[in-house]
């Protein structure tokens, strides 16, 4: 046992209260994280003290309920976060009932799903909640039995006095405990004392999922509820000019049709306010089918929208150009940008001189298209606007970031907004952008009824908030001995650059230059599982593979050599990564995959590694190519995400990342012609399917005592290059443009 080194006893406080019918309820308050979240832009959560009262409920019958604060989209925090509390509370996991907390910034701090931060941020906080409750129950038992606390032990929700053989459940003492002051010094277990953390536990919602219970936002219904959809411009860069809904209104089941404006014209855009179209036509009716049919009868005239500027917070302005954009043109524009000087993001040594003196230069340009999120549960929200209050049942990743936007648009105080957090049928960043909640509220207000707003799959695919289209050009300079002397990276995208200038291989090279550029666009973009990293890794790790071959070096040995340099004698002051942990995953994946072993000599395999979201991941992928068919035989993943809370859930995430990565690398693309997406549904948007999944996926975790770091995103980015590098082995051809599969010949 060790005393917590956290500052909770000084800067935070716990709060306890009694439950009606006996029992206790305990929560914690703490200083919410003010650290920017990497993947979601320059997001700063306001540091506020929050009063919390509802993480644990222990009833007098010893039933224990733990509330999971964070929105759930499949990352399985509903299992892992309550496990943190249950460990320190010392209860039998089987006796714990888990419930999703609703949005309540007084009850729960940081209800935030994004940036692979969930377990990382909750690691000490939630354990402190559990430990405090346990200490209070012990104190209550000590007083009831008139025995010193030091003679009492806890296990599986029981307090025991070994000497006398007395043993009673927590429930017996819960009410007395609730009258006690919260202890000042809270002691957390040492990692070696964990009984639950680190053991594989099944998804607590599993039994409901396999029975198809109505868990999701799209499943929500209540009496009098109407169904709503929105008809939006057919192309990016267009807006509504005029419309005639006479025929549509006469369709069966239709209650009302009207336009809504998602944001006011003078809206100051915050990071998650992105929406594809601002003025849309809302159709409200008695069933989804009625509304779908009526939409077809709307006669709308759309026009090309003029250039505009969106005012952002921090007085920033974003230019939204006029015009109907196309993928072909984007690619040509990106190549043009590559020829011009970019914005210098980092420079070490004298890269210009190194390139001027180089005996050989390798230059490769990597590109990637937009990607749609393709969340399996299409976008939706239930809203009921009554008077000056609105109630939501919403699949939303970051409710707290939408509240200020709702206050601004709906003109109601934040106290009048309530959000029940629905389980999300996937998120991957898409549901960080809650414009659909504002749309639903506006529709409910106008229709004067509870409504469920539904996007069709076509709405979701063709009017999304996409992973941007990117390009990175890598140049490497070599001397006469094929020694790497400098590297130059220049990259950008539509409409943002993917560059992380301070990441590997920066820090490992004496001469290094990183430049960025961006092309303004009216295509809406946003976070997509490991934003920017998912493309950086693809380009960087493919390029390192190619230059290692030129140098005659083994690709893993070459990466380790660079990392050793970054570890022993790093170049530059700011290098974002820990070279030792980076090396650790490469060594683990090398050993577990049998890399370089004679028995694997015939395998077509590629390796890749990347750092993001404070974690390290590496993959070796074995595949075969026949015509245009790729069969992935095996994926070996090595991950360093610190202490693993729930190995079963963690493995599932890493397996999913491998399949998702292979799918997007081989098939993923959203292309545009004159502002319209060429893909509209799963018949045209190519998703990975059962027969294309790897035959085998092995996941290995680096065992260490580091507090948990990110897990959901880190195993995703390296997959793309592991695929590209293995495809090279199988075909003799390097792959520079995503997706790869269409470049194979049948």
């Amino acid at each position: 046992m060790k005393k917590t080194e956290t500052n909770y006893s000084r800067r935070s406080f716990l709060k306890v209260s009694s439950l009606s019918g006996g029992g206790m309820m305990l929560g914690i308050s703490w200083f919410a994280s003010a650290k920017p979240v990497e993947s979601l832009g320059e997001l700063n959560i306001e540091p506020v003290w929050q009063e919390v009262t509802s993480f644990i409920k222990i009833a007098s019958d010893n039933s224990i309920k733990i509330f999971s604060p964070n929105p759930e989209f499949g990352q399985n925090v509903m299992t892992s976060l309550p496990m943190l509390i249950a460990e320190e509370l010392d209860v039998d996991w089987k006796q714990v009932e888990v419930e999703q907390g609703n949005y309540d910034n007084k009850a729960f701090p940081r209800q935030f799903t994004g940036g692979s931060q969930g377990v990382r941020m909750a690691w000490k906080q939630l354990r402190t909640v559990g430990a405090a409750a346990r200490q209070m129950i012990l104190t209550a038992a000590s007083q009831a039995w008139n025995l010193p606390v030091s003679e009492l032990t806890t296990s599986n929700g029981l307090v025991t006095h070994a000497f006398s053989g007395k043993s009673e459940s927590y429930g017996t003492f819960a009410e007395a405990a609730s009258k006690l002051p919260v202890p000042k010094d809270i002691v957390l277990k040492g990692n070696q004392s964990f009984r639950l953390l680190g053991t594989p536990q099944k998804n607590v919602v599993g039994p409901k999922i396999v029975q198809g219970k109505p868990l999701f936002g799209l499943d929500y219904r209540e009496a009098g509820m109407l169904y709503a959809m929105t008809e939006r411009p057919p192309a990016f860069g267009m807006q509504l000019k005029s419309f005639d809904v006479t025929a549509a209104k006469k369709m069966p089941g239709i209650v009302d049709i009207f336009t809504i404006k998602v944001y006011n014209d003078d809206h100051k855009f915050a990071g998650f306010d992105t929406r594809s179209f601002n003025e849309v036509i809302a159709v409200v009716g008695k069933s989804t089918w009625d509304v779908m049919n009526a939409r077809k009868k709307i006669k709308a005239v759309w026009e090309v929208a003029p250039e505009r500027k969106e005012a952002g917070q921090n007085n920033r302005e974003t230019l939204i150009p006029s015009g109907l954009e196309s993928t072909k043109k984007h690619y040509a524009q990106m190549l043009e940008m590559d020829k011009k000087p970019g914005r210098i993001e980092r420079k070490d040594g004298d890269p210009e001189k190194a390139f001027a003196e180089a005996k050989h230069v390798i230059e490769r340009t990597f590109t990637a298209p937009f990607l749609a999120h393709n969340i399996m549960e299409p976008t939706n929200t239930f809203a009921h606007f009554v008077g000056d209050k609105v109630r939501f049942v919403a699949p939303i990743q970051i409710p707290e970031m939408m509240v200020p936007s709702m206050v601004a648009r709906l003109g109601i105080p934040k106290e009048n907004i309530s959000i029940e957090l629905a389980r999300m049928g996937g998120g991957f960043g898409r549901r960080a952008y809650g414009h659909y909640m504002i749309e639903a509220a506006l529709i409910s207000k106008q229709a004067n009824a509870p409504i469920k707003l539904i996007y069709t799959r076509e709405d979701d695919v063709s009017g999304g908030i996409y992973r941007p289209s990117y390009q990175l050009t890598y140049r490497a300079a070599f001397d006469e001995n094929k020694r790497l002397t400098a590297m130059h990276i220049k990259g950008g995208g539509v409409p943002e650059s993917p560059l992380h200038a301070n990441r590997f291989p920066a820090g490992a090279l004496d001469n290094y230059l990183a430049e960025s550029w961006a092309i303004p666009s009216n295509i809406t973009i946003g976070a997509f599982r490991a934003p920017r990293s998912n493309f950086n890794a693809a380009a960087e790790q493919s390029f390192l593979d190619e230059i290692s071959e030129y140098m005659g070096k083994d690709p893993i040995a070459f990466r380790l050599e660079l990392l050793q340099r970054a570890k022993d004698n790093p170049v530059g002051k700011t290098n974002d990564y820990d070279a030792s942990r980076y090396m650790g995953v490469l060594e683990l994946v090398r050993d577990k995959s049998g890399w370089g072993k004679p028995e694997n000599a015939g395998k077509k395999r590629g390796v890749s590694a990347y750092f993001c979201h404070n974690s390290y991941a590496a993959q070796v992928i074995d595949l075969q190519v026949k015509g245009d068919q790729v069969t992935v035989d095996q994926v070996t993943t090595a991950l360093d995400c610190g202490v693993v809370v729930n190995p079963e859930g963690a493995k599932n995430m890493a397996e999913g990342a491998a399949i998702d990565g292979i799918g997007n690398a081989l098939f993923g693309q959203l292309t545009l012609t004159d502002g319209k997406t060429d893909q509209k549904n799963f018949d045209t948007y190519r998703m990975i399917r059962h027969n294309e999944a790897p035959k085998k996926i092995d996941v290995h975790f680096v065992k260490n005592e580091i507090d948990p770091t990110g897990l959901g995103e880190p195993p995703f980015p390296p997959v793309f290059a592991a695929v590209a590098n293995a495809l090279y082995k199988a075909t003799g051809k390097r792959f520079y443009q995503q997706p790869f599969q269409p470049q194979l010949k049948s």
Partner: protein
Amino acid sequence: MIKKYFVRINKKVHQVEADENMPLLWVLRDILGMEGTKYGCGVGSCGACTVHLNGSAVRSCQLPISALAGMEITTIEGLSAKGDHPVQKAWLDVDVAQCGYCQSGQIMSAAALLKSTPNPTEEDIENFMTGNICRCGTYTRIKKAIQQAAAKS
């Protein structure tokens, strides 16, 4: 055109009034309040809405209500009384789900596969399940669960 229909779902006859072209998916979800059958694409390309029609796996988004006379429909709600169908049990044992949204459809497809092919090969599983998309990437676990269910039944 709105008409009256009788549909037999999970061994019970339901009377519904609906547009003749309304797909079974929306009859289930919006009229009968059975939300276990999920909407994913509406064009028969993702499998989220899979139900059994006379024992075979079909996409309910492609089945108009007017075509269901005399047919026996089973949805995820009717697959077992307590969620204890061998496929459901295997799904829990293998801890398949991530977000869980596509899993009703995956389970209904898997149950139909095992009914017609009690001992499927890996290739049988891959081919039969190809119509069911999972964005979270649970395919390898799904395959393992189907193999486990086949071995136990």
